């Protein structure tokens, strides 16, 4: 009974999320929207770290490139077309991921962590230092993308409900895609690589090609998250590509629990709520709320130290205990 429920849980959660806007205040709806976008981003990294065993510290580059592509490709005086902008953002992130993956997958372990970090810095400096990237201040998106067919506007992301719907759709699609992928031959090969790459190569798999494919797919999904953020916030800035952002999303999947798709989603919920709680004066007082980075840092240390298996590990422990 529990096992069956467990299996249908993601679907129930998706239905609940779809029903939420009807009952939530605008503030809470916005909070859920932030969680969903972060969850897409975290899921994309989970494919690399949890499934394939590649620890990347430069994942924010693809997220940022997706967001910047969205803004740069939007026409200046009219709303951009969702059907063009969304694939374009994912493609831009995917192209950079293809190049970075081809180069950085020649290295392993610690080298890989540092090389992905350095390639992300490269992208960061391009948007930070050139006029095209708008410098430190970033760039504004004048009009949010719309989906129009035959003169009829079907989806306008200026509308909060539509934005929420699109983010939910993206989250469900990403989750479903990754869930299918993990059950596929490709996914099993990736899991094999995580456990023992040597053996997989001996068994005849061209492991570098598999890892590269996973890297590019993860980059494209991060680009999708970037598109969602650009459309949601209406502006982009270089900090989206910074290594603090890469560290934060790495934290999200570890906080939730590595190796499980729902871990990434739970981690996104935990991280957004934690950050929100620590920076809300009403909850922690003015002094601490102003110093939320300090408390967040300490909270992160405590989480990593006390819950090496993440939030999902807590639930498992309780389950097996009872």
């Amino acid at each position, binding site marked *: 009974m529990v096992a069956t429920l467990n299996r249908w849980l993601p679907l129930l959660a998706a239905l609940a999320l779809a029903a939420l806007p009807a009952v939530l205040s605008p503030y809470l709806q916005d909070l859920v929207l932030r969680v969903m976008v972060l969850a897409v981003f975290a899921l994309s990294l989970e494919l690399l*770290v949890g499934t394939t065993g590649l*620890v990347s*510290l430069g994942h924010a580059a693809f997220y940022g490139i997706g967001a910047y592509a969205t803004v740069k490709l939007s026409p200046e005086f009219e709303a951009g077309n969702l059907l063009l902008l969304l694939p374009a953002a994912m493609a831009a992130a995917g192209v950079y991921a293809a190049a970075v993956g081809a*180069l*950085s997958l*020649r*290295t392993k*372990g*610690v*080298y890989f*962590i*540092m*090389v992905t*970090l*350095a*390639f992300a*810095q*490269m992208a960061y*400096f*391009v948007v*930070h*230092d*050139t*006029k095209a990237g708008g410098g430190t201040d970033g760039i504004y998106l004048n009009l949010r993308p719309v989906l129009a067919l035959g003169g009829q506007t079907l989806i306008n992301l200026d509308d909060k409900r539509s934005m929420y719907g699109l983010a939910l759709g993206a989250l469900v699609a990403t989750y479903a895609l990754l869930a299918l992928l993990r059950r596929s031959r490709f996914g099993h090969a990736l899991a094999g690589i995580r456990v023992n790459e040597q053996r997989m190569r001996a068994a005849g798999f061209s492991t570098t090609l598999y890892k590269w494919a996973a890297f590019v797919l993860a980059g494209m999904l991060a680009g999708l998250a970037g598109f969602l953020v650009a459309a949601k916030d209406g502006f982009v800035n270089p900090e989206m590509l910074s*290594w*603090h952002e890469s*560290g934060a999303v*790495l*934290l999200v999947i*570890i906080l939730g629990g*590595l190796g499980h798709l729902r871990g990434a989603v739970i981690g996104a919920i935990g991280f957004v709520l934690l950050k929100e709680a620590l920076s809300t004066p009403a909850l922690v007082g003015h002094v601490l709320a102003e*110093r939320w*980075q*300090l408390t*967040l*840092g*300490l909270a*992160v*240390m405590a989480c*990593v*130290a006390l819950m*090496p298996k993440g939030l999902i590990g807590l639930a498992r422990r309780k389950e097996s205990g009872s």
Partner: protein
Amino acid sequence: MDLATFAVQCLNAVQYGLLLFLVASGLTLIFGIMGVINLAHGSFYMLGAYLAFGLAPLFGQNFVLMLVCGTLLAALFGYLLEWAFFSYLYQRDHLQQVLMTWALILVFEELRSMLVGNDVHGVKAPDWLAGTVALGELMTYPVYRLFASLACLAIGAALWFTVNRTRLGMMIRAGASNRDMVRGLGIPITWLYRVVFAGGVALAALAGMIAAPMSSVYPGMGGHVLIVSFVVVVIGGIGSIPGALVAALLVGLVDTFGKVFFAELSGIGVYLLMAVILVWRPEGLMRKGW
């Protein structure tokens, strides 16, 4: 570009490279021996810069004495930090080390903001290091930059001597290649780690103190230096001190001349260099060794 400008830029490149080498050698020491990925290393560089800002007025013209005192303070801080925090990270995997030290940066940045605020400060070099000096008939060069280069060279030489010619260095090298063997031989490895970590912190802080009169002291200054010194370590080959030296000089050259020739995109020059070198040699320029 005429010859004089070219020569000045070359000296600048070497000076920047040597400074990076100090930071990167601290990183290599901590990583090579203890196997901890320390993202907070840039914070130690920042600590040094703020130490210089705080100590310089107290010491006046005794700049060298200030560097010594600052280094000792930083080493003490490193010793305590290892005892309180880093000693718990050795048994953890790289992923958790990345996160723990990433969180440590948040804490350090906020503590800095609480203690000294978010203003940008300058540090004044003492009078005897101010001004410029004529080098041959061709050019003049700032005295302080010459002092910085020579100081870095001297510290580098002292580091090389310590690691290669002293008993402590012998234990460090042994610890880097086989820590279980070292423990088996009865060498107090816990103490050794603590000393090495303090040394790594001291090197980064020393670099920060030397850099302070040349560049301003500002929030977030550790981040940039951290990433560039990671690049140096990766290009040089992780755990190789000579590799770090060669890589640091290369990075210094690329960065300095990149700023001269391609002002707008100079930021990525260093990372392009890294990409090219890693395509050629995925394990970096040199093998682990001293």
